[in-house]
């Protein structure tokens, strides 16, 4: 149903976009001349970045050097002093998550906390958590709405279901990656080596949960909002053109802290803990509540449960 005014609009928009594009070419050319060489890095850093190995193949010395380069790069790129570490998985720990959907009220405080904690670009469209607004008595995800924005939540007749990376125990994204830039850590977190990722986005198509996100733009983060506690496999500043995902706040949880989304949740709907510890809260939930997993029939074995009570 295209009216003449619609097509005029389209044409105007196209003309404007073309003008902007041409102008951008000119400006880009000027900027390329004005920018320092090596993308703002020193020659030695750019050289070392180019020959950096995959995370699991690096020696401890090479990892330390890479961490220092990441810190230097963040200072040059964002003007923020960060500390990037490489805390290893604790032995005897496998993380699991549960969400009580009868507690979730759709406030999106978790999304907000996640963006701040994980240095997600403020302008980019990457958000690790999507809170789905669902119709009562309906579990069909195609009927969900995640752009909901009423004056007050919860809305009558709706319930809310946050969706993020399920940290599958048999992750299809890992199988899809052609360069082994993503893998499952011993504590069950599926991580990405952002420096090894080639940006092919096969993992995004393999993931049935819309949990992986692609950085179409260089993430923009104001220096004062940069979270300085970062992890190599977690929330360190990512380059443009790589895939990233929820990593259960690896920089926090490996040190015993709660994930940022859980700490921010005002209703206590989120429960996180060690699946191997029989006395943990998550194990109590799994043993005593009617839990289900999203798209369980796909056999990806998510370590992420939903329940209501």
């Amino acid at each position, binding site marked *: 149903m295209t009216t003449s005014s619609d097509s005029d609009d389209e044409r105007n928009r196209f003309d404007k976009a073309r003008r902007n594009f041409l102008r951008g070419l000119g400006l880009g050319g000027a900027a390329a001349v004005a920018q320092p060489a090596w993308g703002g890095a020193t020659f030695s850093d750019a050289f070392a970045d180019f020959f950096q190995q995959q995370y699991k193949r690096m020696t401890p010395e090479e990892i330390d050097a890479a961490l220092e380069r990441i810190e230097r790069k963040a200072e040059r790129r964002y003007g923020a002093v960060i500390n990037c570490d490489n805390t290893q998985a604790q032995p005897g720990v496998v993380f699991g998550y549960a969400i009580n959907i009868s507690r979730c009220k759709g406030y999106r405080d978790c999304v907000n906390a996640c963006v701040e904690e994980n240095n997600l670009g403020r302008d980019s469209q990457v958000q690790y958590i999507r809170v789905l607004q669902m119709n009562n008595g309906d579990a069909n995800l195609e009927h969900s709405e995640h752009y909901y924005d009423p004056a007050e*939540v919860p809305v009558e007749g709706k319930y809310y279901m946050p969706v993020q990376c399920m940290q599958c125990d048999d992750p299809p994204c890992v199988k899809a990656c052609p360069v082994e830039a993503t893998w499952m850590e011993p504590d069950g977190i599926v991580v990405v080596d952002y420096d090894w990722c080639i940006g092919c986005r096969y993992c995004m198509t393999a993931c049935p949960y819309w949990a992986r996100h692609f950085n179409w733009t260089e993430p923009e983060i104001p220096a004062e909002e940069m979270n300085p506690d970062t992890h190599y496999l977690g929330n360190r500043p990512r380059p443009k053109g790589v895939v990233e995902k929820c990593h259960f706040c690896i920089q926090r949880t490996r040190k015993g802290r*709660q994930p940022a989304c*859980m700490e921010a949740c005002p209703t206590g709907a989120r429960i996180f803990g060690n699946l191997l510890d029989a006395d943990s809260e998550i194990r*109590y939930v799994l043993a005593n509540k009617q839990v289900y997993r999203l798209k369980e029939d796909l056999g990806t074995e998510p370590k992420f449960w939903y329940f209501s009570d």
Partner: protein
Amino acid sequence: MSQSGDLIVSKKRACMPSVSLVPETSLTKTRRRTLAAGLLVLLLSANAQEGEEALPPLRFEGYPGAPDFDVVPRKDQLFLYPCGQCHESMESNAEIRTLDVMLHPELEHAEGRIWCLSCHGLENRNYLRTLLNEPVDFDQADLVCGGCHASRHRDWTFGAHGKRVANWQGERTLYSCAHCHNPHSPAIEPRAPRDAPPVRAGLELKRGVERKEVPVWERQEEDEQ
């Protein structure tokens, strides 16, 4: 206990102000009445007795195998505590009746099945009471709530309800019931959500189009009809 408790409470204020949302609104309600009755309180608090001996904390071991935990204290956040500073000098009246008293919040809990002295002690004015009429400190208020809401209390003790402070590992500190639920009006009030996520590039609404198109599944239903 009280020193570490202060630490925890201040941490809570720093990291999650939204939890105390409900109690705060009731506070503003009471604060309005405070202006009118401020002088009365000043006069009465001068008579309040000091140095009263604290009763021993109530022991509850109803859930075998429950992991240990501390509860974030809340007494220092209570506006009118200690209750005795007024009520010690007032005649006590155990007759069940409707009260509309200055300063105190209205009771919108259990739809009229309970009244003040169902939870507050008559003999020990600075304490709450269980259904067995045992005095309970205000920092152990969960034992009062658990008297009726037993399954919730059990879930809370084991970690399936309520919130744990800061960590998943190590020392376990829980927010008490009243940190999130106003005991006098326990339903959580609706509030505005945070910003909606940005619409993905290429999926924006056309200019001049206010409403989203009818979703596919609704269109299909129309077609079938």
